[in-house]
């Protein structure tokens, strides 16, 4: 008799987390998925609370929603009430909603306020093997911990508040390996900009990205967060890294992390969620770290990027499908096809955001800017991602290093990443930015222009007054 071997195919972390949180299949083929951790902020939640009230619904799991205020907060003067009455109305609304429904709120006086995607991890709220949703596309950041984290719309914020679930279709999983070691002067930001450039801004549509390989194994949690954060810029609604010793070391002892005897149980459980070695992915893409150079965008979406040593593309030699997009991008950016990006004068430098506003970002830049100064015609602002990041920077004297170098050191918030607060570009100013989107008008002026790059490259541009290869300027 022939023994037929039983094929036991491994599962991805995505599948395991999904299965552990699937409540039921819905009639239309979607899944009702339990969202264990819900993060909210002032911009996308007020209408959700209004709908809850209008429909007479309850919030059955208030202890699983966490709030903070980030998008609209001024970063220079924190006097209350805010000068902008609309901003004041929004923060008041959030405060009232959290009070009414018993939701934990990291408000400004708490010292724990910050960008929601910086606060969650640093408080230990973001944990492996969990599902996380937030009315913000950069929720993919939390995948760095081996969580499945989605950006959702306001109606879904309502759904999570009222039911702790959302209706969603299962994603495919694309494994993205980055093997080898990054070259000096090349950072996590360059890795994700390179991935988006190669796979396209819609290449991840329908997928969750699983990042792995030697580069990710060696990355710190903050570096993993930078990459997962921008998954959505590649079209992937979620991106994640399997949890490992680095993840657990980061989480140990944080305010909301499991403590005492719960800790070992939690780690044992988290470990089981990592993708099995014999997993078959829907797709696999492999990059080699040594092919990646410091990368900067030049156009109006994050996929329009070049290495710092490269020249800009030329619409004349592009295929017909891409030509219109390139022409539109050149038209907005006022750059010349075929020219090097290096040497392009900038007027503003922005260091911060949920992509690159964490402690290590400021520490790394501080190493290079000591004894140097921002160019006279450049306005440079440094905005910590959270009050906690700001506090540690002060303790370490990093804020002084920035101020001495001519940066304005600010209070925590989203700031000029999307310019919903007073930090905005003026006219067609060109900004070297450590944020995540270079869309037309993104930084507050319809004609404003953005070049995305790593924090160290932003600092180099600020000092040189133009887009610069940081490796040359800093002899790194």
């Amino acid at each position, binding site marked *: 008799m022939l023994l037929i071997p039983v094929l036991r195919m491994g599962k991805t972390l995505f599948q395991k987390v999904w299965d552990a949180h699937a409540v039921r299949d819905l009639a239309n083929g979607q899944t009702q998925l339990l969202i264990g951790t819900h993060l909210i902020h002032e911009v*996308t939640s007020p209408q959700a609370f209004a709908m809850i009230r209008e429909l007479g619904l309850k919030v059955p799991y208030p202890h699983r929603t966490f709030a903070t205020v980030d998008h609209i907060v001024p970063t220079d003067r924190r006097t209350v009430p805010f000068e902008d009455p609309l901003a004041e109305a929004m923060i008041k609304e959030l405060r009232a909603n959290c009070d009414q429904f018993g939701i934990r709120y990291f408000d400004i006086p708490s010292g724990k306020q910050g960008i929601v995607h910086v606060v969650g991890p640093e408080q230990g709220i973001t944990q492996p093997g969990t599902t996380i949703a937030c009315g913000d596309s950069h929720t993919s950041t939390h995948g760095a911990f081996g969580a499945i984290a989605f*950006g959702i*719309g306001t109606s879904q914020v309502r759904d999570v508040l009222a039911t702790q679930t959302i209706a969603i279709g299962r994603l495919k999983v694309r494994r993205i390996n980055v093997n080898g070691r990054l070259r000096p002067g090349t950072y996590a930001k360059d890795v994700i900009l390179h991935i988006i450039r190669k796979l396209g*801004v819609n290449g991840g*549509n329908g997928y969750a990205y699983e990042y792995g390989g030697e580069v990710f194994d060696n990355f710190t949690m903050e570096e993993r967060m930078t990459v997962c954060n921008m998954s*959505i810029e590649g079209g992937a609604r979620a991106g994640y890294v399997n949890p490992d010793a680095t993840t657990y070391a980061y989480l140990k002892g944080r305010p909301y992390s499991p403590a005492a005897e719960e800790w070992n149980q939690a780690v044992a459980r988290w470990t089981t969620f990592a993708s099995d070695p014999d997993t078959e992915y829907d797709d696999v893409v492999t990059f080699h770290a040594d092919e990646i150079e410091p990368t900067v965008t030049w156009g109006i979406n994050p996929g329009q990027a070049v290495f710092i040593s490269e020249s800009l593309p030329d619409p004349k030699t592009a295929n017909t499908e891409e030509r219109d997009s390139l022409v539109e991008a050149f038209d907005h950016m006022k750059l010349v096809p075929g020219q090097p990006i290096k040497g392009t004068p900038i007027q503003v430098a922005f260091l911060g955001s949920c992509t690159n506003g964490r402690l290590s970002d400021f520490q790394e830049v501080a190493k290079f800017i000591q004894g140097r100064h921002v160019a006279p015609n450049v306005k440079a602002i440094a905005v910590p991602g959270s009050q906690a990041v700001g506090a540690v920077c002060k303790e370490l004297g990093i804020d002084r290093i920035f101020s001495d170098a001519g940066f304005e050191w600010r209070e925590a918030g989203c700031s000029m990443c999307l310019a919903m607060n007073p930090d905005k570009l003026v006219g067609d100013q060109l900004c070297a930015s450590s944020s995540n989107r270079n*869309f037309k*008008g993104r930084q507050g002026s319809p004609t404003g222009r953005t070049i995305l790059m790593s924090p160290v490259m932003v600092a180099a541009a600020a000092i040189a007054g133009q887009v610069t290869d940081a490796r040359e300027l800093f002899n790194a």
Partner: protein
Amino acid sequence: MPLPKISTVAGTGVVIAGDDVDTDRIIPARYMKCVTFDGLGEFLFYDVRFDENGRPKAHPLNDPQHHGATILIAGRNFGCGSSREHAPQAIYRYGFRAIVAESFAEIFFGNAITLGIPCVTASRTDLAKIRHAVTANPKAKLTVDLVQQTVELASEVFTASVRGSARDALLTGRWDAIGDLLDAQDLVQKRAADLPYMRPNLVPAP
């Protein structure tokens, strides 16, 4: 919550040119400083429609010939970027009731369906034809048919597909999931009980 069943949308169209049109362009962030979605319609595509002094620019949405259009025709990866539901809300409140594009960004697609806005995809070649016809004749009548999965334009019929779960949700009047989600609270509780991190006692006191 009974919702209308949506099987066809008929009306005139307007073309939003270009691929990768992001939600910042659909509704600039400064117009999200609000606590309701009311009034968002007037700021739809604001920076593309108006100059810095608020004067209208040459844009199809400013063209009186396109007044009253209910079907938006777009390109590839429409609605990429920010998850702001303000984008489909602005589109709906401006008066659009369906979008035809080559493809949609994931989050935007879900948000639009939840508002009952069918998002159908057509091939690049067919979209070029539709765009051409609508630009040439702004009064041309279009019909988006979710049952047949087509877009009809004069005597021409183009294939237009909608992802299965969304099509089903629209056709059966279950496009806003809240009703279904509320139905299974006992199952949710059971699921939550299996997840240690859902236990209230694991969250420290404020």
